[in-house]
């Protein structure tokens, strides 16, 4: 199944944007403590999604899963660039430096995601796929089906990895008590 009429592509994309931009911002706020970086990564994700919207096929998964897949890719590239000491975030040309009120807004969001950031830190010892599964389902609120699409793995594999990751985290938690 393909997307609806191309004549309303902008309206469709706006709807997807408005429904998911909060979750996208939170996704990066859990991973970065700098408001400008959160803004840059969110904008990069949205720009990529706008560019690839023509090839988005709702039959293969929800828009939310599709966007999280892009966000995960953007974040992985950001980490790779940061590891290489290169300019880590690509800035949307018109976005520029954020005004103070928007920085405050994002700083609040980053603060609100503190618990999520701690969980992500605890997950850092997990294998990448298990970590991704826990983050997307337990932190970002995706369904296992959506998380499977975002991570590009079969649903059964995702469920198995998710279950295994939760068990490991529980075990680790009990051992600390």
């Amino acid at each position, binding site marked *: 199944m393909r997307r609806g009429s191309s004549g309303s592509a902008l309206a469709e994309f706006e709807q997807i*944007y408005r429904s998911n931009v909060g979750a996208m911002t939170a996704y990066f706020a859990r991973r970065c403590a700098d408001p400008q970086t959160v803004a840059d990564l969110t904008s990069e994700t949205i*720009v990529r999604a706008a560019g*690839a919207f023509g090839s988005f096929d709702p039959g293969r998964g929800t828009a939310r899963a599709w966007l999280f897949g892009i966000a995960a890719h953007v974040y992985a590239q950001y980490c790779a660039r940061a590891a290489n000491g290169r300019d880590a975030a690509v800035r949307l040309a018109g976005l520029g430096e954020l005004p103070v009120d928007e920085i405050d807004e994002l700083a609040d969001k980053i603060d609100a995601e503190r618990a999520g950031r701690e969980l992500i830190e605890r997950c850092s010892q997990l294998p990448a796929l298990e970590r991704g599964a826990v983050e997307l389902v337990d932190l970002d609120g995706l369904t296992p089906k959506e998380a499977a699409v975002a991570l590009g793995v079969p649903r059964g594999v995702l469920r198995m990895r998710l279950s295994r990751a939760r068990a490991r985290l529980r075990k680790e938690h009990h051992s600390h008590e």
Partner: protein
Amino acid sequence: MSKFEDHLWREVVRQHGPDLEPAPPPRAKRWRARPRVLAGTTLGLAGMGAVVALVLGAAGSSPAFAVTPHQDGTVTVKILRSEGIAPANARLTALGVRARVVQVATGCVAPYALTPRSIAAKPGGIKWWVHVQTRINPGKIPAGRTLVIAAWRAGGRVAVVVDRAVAGAPPVCLPPIPLTCPSRVAGNSGNSGSSGSAPSPTVTSGNSGNSGNSGNSGSGLRPAGSNRAPTPAHFKSCQVVQRPPTSGNSGNSGNSGNSGS
């Protein structure tokens, strides 16, 4: 939505609205129900209201380019009109892609010539190898270099082809160049502009020596005994040499050609 989210949306629409613009309807369908389509379009535009206004306000007209990042990190560059080159470059810069679209222009003086892959970069030249878009992988551009994408007008469209990654600033234009295959022309100077031993209507139409460019014709650029036009693979072993048209007899309009046998 928060102020940041509103701000971001405005910028996305301003800069990338054209990417989301509906594609023009196929030409074949337009004539069939012309009156209805026109009426429908008018009503449709009125009904779409602010959303359409945003797109038209951002673009002003149909988009002249498309730079599309993909999930795998690659980027597709498409130039629909020459005016799209500058904004396409701005978009590539905004995306952090070290690539630049450079227009092929007659009379341009550049520090280097095109590679053999860009052989079709001759105005009015070979039409069997025209790409209207190209997909590049920014991750594979060597550090400190900028990938040059040559663009030229071809048959009412703008063709693009990846040229090379250059160190330092990329050229502002590229010249359409005479091409020879030194390893294949030994001892054979050609009659310029005319076909060589294996003429091809497709090739000779672009290399007839009438367009102010030297031509390449002859078996050196095609499989022996084949009447098919050469493919890009045939140019892989062909070196581009930029030199004055001295060899052979001059042909039509003083342009030299190279024909090998």
